[in-house]
């Protein structure tokens, strides 16, 4: 394989979006299919990462670099805030997991079914 040909492959917006989509769908699968509470939280983090990739990709490819003095970095800022919120959410979520574990000695989501018929 000629490596120099590889540089002709343009990695455009679509590619990044597809990567983001794949990460999102994997995370979604994890949310639906896992029994362990912490595994679900991890899958949620994956989804958030995918969203971040989207933000940054759009910013990079669709917005002008600079307007007057400032750069247009709205996507970056959004991604930053997503990270912040993700961090807060993980903290609280894991605290909840630990509290539930203390009560029921299990991290199995199937057992949290008090709303069952």
């Amino acid at each position, binding site marked *: 394989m000629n490596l120099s040909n590889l540089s002709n492959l343009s990695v455009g917006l679509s590619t990044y979006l597809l990567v983001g989509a794949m990460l999102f769908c994997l995370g*979604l699968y994890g*949310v*639906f299919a896992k029994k362990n509470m912490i595994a*679900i939280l991890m899958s949620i983090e994956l989804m958030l990462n995918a969203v971040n990739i989207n933000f940054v990709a*759009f910013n990079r490819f*669709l917005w002008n670099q600079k307007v007057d003095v400032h750069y247009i970095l709205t996507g970056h800022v959004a991604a930053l805030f997503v990270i912040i919120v993700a961090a807060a959410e993980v903290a609280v979520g894991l605290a909840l997991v630990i509290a539930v574990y203390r009560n029921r000695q299990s991290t199995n*989501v*199937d057992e*949290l*079914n*008090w*709303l*069952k*018929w």
Partner: protein
Amino acid sequence: MFKEMHDLFQWAWLIPALPFLSFLLIAFVTKRSKGLSSTISILAILTSLGLAIAIAYAIIQAGAEIVEHPAIVNVNWLNILGLKINFGTIIDPLSAMMLFVVTLVASMVQIYSLGYMHGDKGWSRYYAYQSLFASSMLGMVLATNLLQLFIFWELVGLCSYLLIGFWYFKVSAREAAKKAFMTTRVGDFGLLLGMLFLYTKFGTLDFAELAAVLSTTIQNVAVVGTVGYVTVMAFLVFMGPLGKSGQFPLHVWLPDAMEGPTPVSALIHAATMVVAGVYLVARMYFLFDASPAALQFIGGIGAFTAIFAASIAIAQNDIKRILAYSTLSQLGYMMFALGVGSLTGSMFHLFTHAFFKALMFLGAGSVIHALHEKQNIWDMGGLLKKMPITGWTFGIGVLAISGIPPFAGFFSKDELLANALHNGHPIIYAVGLFTAFLTAFYMCRLFFVAFMGPEKAENHPHESPWSMTIPLIILAFFSVVGGWAALPEHNFAFFIHYLPSGHEFEREAIDWGLAGISVLAGLLGIGLAYIIYIKKIISAESIVARFPMAHKVLKNKYYVDELYLWIIHNVMDGLGKVLYWFDIYIVDGIINGIALATRGSGKTLRRTSTGQVQTYAMVFFFAVVVIFMVFVFGEGQLTALNPLATLGGVK
């Protein structure tokens, strides 16, 4: 002079009001006192009789004027949007004649009952019912509109029920009362439908207004197939008289109604109530005249009933049954007279028939009373000697019904048979003539067997008291002279006739040729009865032996009652069973099914609440994915939206 008479006509409402007042008094006040009850009742009816005679006199005085312009008094009873009902009285020659007949026969019967019902425990109740009946019948005769007539019609039916079942401790009486009510109810249903139809079509039930509407040329627009709506109305309205006046096939209740006391039979089931149907047709004649099909039907049914009932009568042995079938036959006469267009003949026959039939029933009652409730004519014999007044008055009645001049029946029967032939109905004329022969035969059979011939040893008859014989004499008097109302210049026909608009009244002379033929038929009947039952040249038993089947059929009234019972048991009960099955399994099944479906769906749907958030999230996301896919891959209005915008993206 008419002004004074007009004032008298204003008071016509008293005629039904007085007996009604007497009914109330007897029912609520004087029930315990037998003497007072009968006194009040008889006083009331006699006062009404007096008023009726005064009105009749006034009518005769008024002459042609009253024929053109009857005196109508109306009081508005009900006036809601779309419904206007009046109550009133109408005084014209027809109603005056009916008033006279009804009050006369009712008063005779009530006086007669003083003797007949002597010692009966239900004396006050009896007179209360008699008063109620009198007031209802009189109210009906005076009615100005169909609704008022219908109200009194039903009241009369009620009184009939009460009086037939007067001796309610007898099972046969109770059953007969129910039968009468049910059978007439079938007819009344048709009448009610006809009334509704008339009201929705014409907006009024008043006789005068309806006559005005129907006399203009209406297009008899087809409503059911080719049958015009006027014809439908006429048929429906005729259902009432079919039941009430005992025409075939609703005749079955009248013979059974003989379970009631004989005065009741005389009043209600001979002279007055059963002619209510005939009276209704006469009042509504403008409706029937507008529908030739209906008139033909009436004529046919009437003629058939006449011969049908007469044929049954020749094989009956109970004195009251014979008289009952005779009544049915004569009602058939009145009906077919209306059918062939002879309102005069029909009403005249109603007039005379009331007298001689009531007379004969009261005579029969006298016999039954004297022989201590024996009713089979073969148990009687030679009563003429011991009960002369009863016998001779009964004989007058027999001669009257056979149409022998100068008795009343001759004039009326001749009138209607002549009209039948002259209006172009030869078959009906022939049927009527043959029935006249049969009538004379069976009535004379009754007279000869019961009153003549050898006496039976076990009978100890004695003449009835004055309270019973005086009404007999009075009614016999009217049976003799009643027919003479056809003779003077302003005769019966002058006052009571039906003219389609634009015609002038012409006085018809009596056709003596046809009259002779009908007299001949009557004499033949009498002669045949004489030969069989007096001279015994031909014995009755041999005739029966020659025609056993025919005799059996006639004796059993053509098995009509059995047929009806069969229909009720098999068809109606069968239908009832089917509907019951339907109700239990299908109707209830549907309801139960709905409940079961609700329960089942609840049971199934509750499984969706698993309590697991993952499942909820998945279902939710599944919907989101489906919507995305619809937007992306689908075509149509919804997907005109940019899918990118749904997924987020383009600026």
